[in-house]
């Protein structure tokens, strides 16, 4: 079985976001593999370790920096990587066309995708890809087992969680708690340099963006910052309640 695991190199969540010329400026900031993608990469390796004859292919679509994400995932154990290199910003619906075509060409049966991108805050790529392939999808997955052609596990739903069962092929989107991703070791980072990383161009996939990005801005809501000293607890509590009642008027 072949597994496709999607990865992206994004701004580290701890870094502050800088805007320049109407765009998010990533120059000089720390970039990392999107945490939600790490869960997918780790899970593909676990599937390979628990079954026979599994190949794990990492895929990234986007600017050159995504090769760092692919190298990281190769270093933790993916077998090979594909990078569709483009500086064009694709919305998830058009991007899913690329992912679905690669999945078909590579005869993939299982795709892992992050539950929510930490930069675009999007949930759409996994579901859109599943629809294009006419596959079922499981979102926000935090437990997964493969038994032959059947996947079972647990995922988060609207309220609370559900256990599920679904037949392959399928798209799985990840949730925190799915696993503890492993770290690359230095010898494996060296070995990863020899693994195949195939670079492809976007043109062959014939996609047109469906959205136009106009601008971004950081909107910071001014906050009052009225912070009281709580050494005298009853006095501080009384003052806070008074402020919430009479100044903020959020409680009665």
């Amino acid at each position, binding site marked *: 079985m072949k597994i496709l695991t999607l990865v992206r190199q994004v701004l580290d969540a701890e870094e502050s976001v800088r*805007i320049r010329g109407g765009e998010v400026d990533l120059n000089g900031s720390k970039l990392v593999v999107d945490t939600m993608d790490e869960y997918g990469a780790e899970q593909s390796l676990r599937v390979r370790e628990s079954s026979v004859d599994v190949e794990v292919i990492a895929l990234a679509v986007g600017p050159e920096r995504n090769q760092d994400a692919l190298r990281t995932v190769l270093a933790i154990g993916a077998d090979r990587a594909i990078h569709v290199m483009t500086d064009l910003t694709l919305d998830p619906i058009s991007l899913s066309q690329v992912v679905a075509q690669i999945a078909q060409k590579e005869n993939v049966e299982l795709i892992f995708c992050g539950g929510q991108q930490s930069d675009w805050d999007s949930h*759409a790529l996994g579901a859109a890809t599943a*629809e294009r392939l006419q596959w079922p999808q499981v*979102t926000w997955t935090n437990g997964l087992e493969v038994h032959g052609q059947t996947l079972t596990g647990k995922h988060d739903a609207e309220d609370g969680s559900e*256990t599920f069962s679904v037949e392959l092929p399928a798209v799985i989107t990840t949730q*925190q708690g799915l696993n503890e991703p492993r770290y690359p070791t230095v010898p494996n980072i060296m070995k990863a340099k020899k693994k195949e990383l195939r670079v492809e161009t976007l043109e062959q996939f014939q996609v047109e963006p469906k959205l136009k990005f106009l601008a971004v801005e950081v909107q910071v809501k001014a906050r009052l910052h*009225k912070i009281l000293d709580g050494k005298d607890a009853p006095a501080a509590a009384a003052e806070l309640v008074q402020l919430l009642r009479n100044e903020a008027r*959020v409680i009665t």
Partner: protein
Amino acid sequence: MILVVVEYANGKVSKSTYEMVACARQLGREGPVAALVLGSGVANIASEVALVVGQVLVAENADLAQYDAELWSAAVAQIASEGEANTVLIGGSRSGREYSPRVAVKLDAPLLEDVISIVDADDTLTAERYTYLARVTEKVEANAPVIVVTVKQGAFTAAAPGNQVAEQFDVDLTLPQRRLQVTGKSTEKSSRIALTEADIVVSGGRGVGSAEGFVTLVEGLADQLGAAVGATRAIVDAGWRPYSEQVGQTGKTVQSKAYIAIGISGAVQHLSGMSKSKCIVAINKDADAPIFKIADYGIVGDVNQIVPAMIAELKK
């Protein structure tokens, strides 16, 4: 036609539906605002929503008794094409954001995800949405015969019912087979108001000390205020609270009038779920905790002393 897919829970139309109707009215695109009700035993839902829209399409179907992304997307796409909808509004809930991409692909439509504002000018929709864990506001544009939109919960003021009662139409659906089998469910029933519908949310983090501490402090304060309760990932992972109460990147997003954070450090992943609340209140013993950076009011002190004192003060 602007198609609004009705969200409901526990036999009642959800607040998010009224917010979508407000969004649809404000968009003012061509044609009526039509509400689509999907489910089994949904007559009451249909009559309730008939008070706010131009027409109600009712898909009463036993196969729709339980939500499924493939069934929901097939139903919505079918009705959107038959009704020649120019806009399809879907809730920004977990499920809405899960099945809406499938609707967009079926209709070959753009998807505007989790929008906080949207305007129509010359058939082009321009929307704003949050990115980078809700730290950035992005403006995006779509122009197509039909556009799918998910509407962020809490971003629009809920539409109020009028005196007109819209006509109801039954619709027939061609549905696919359910492929994802749900084998078990652990829904946490709560008598409290839902997190995403509450005016006030009281949330607790590791600083409450224990599961019992959460009950005394967070639930104790929430009881006084008629508030919903929320939790950080740290204490959900610790098993103190159910996942349905988690606020943040991988939990729920709230935009309440007041958000009271008790013993919460303020990690970006948590802030992404609550930073748009109107008034933020923090209680933490560490004056340098990041939560204070976005707080309107706060107390630096021990939650075990401050919160009981607040409860006592409110009881006065």
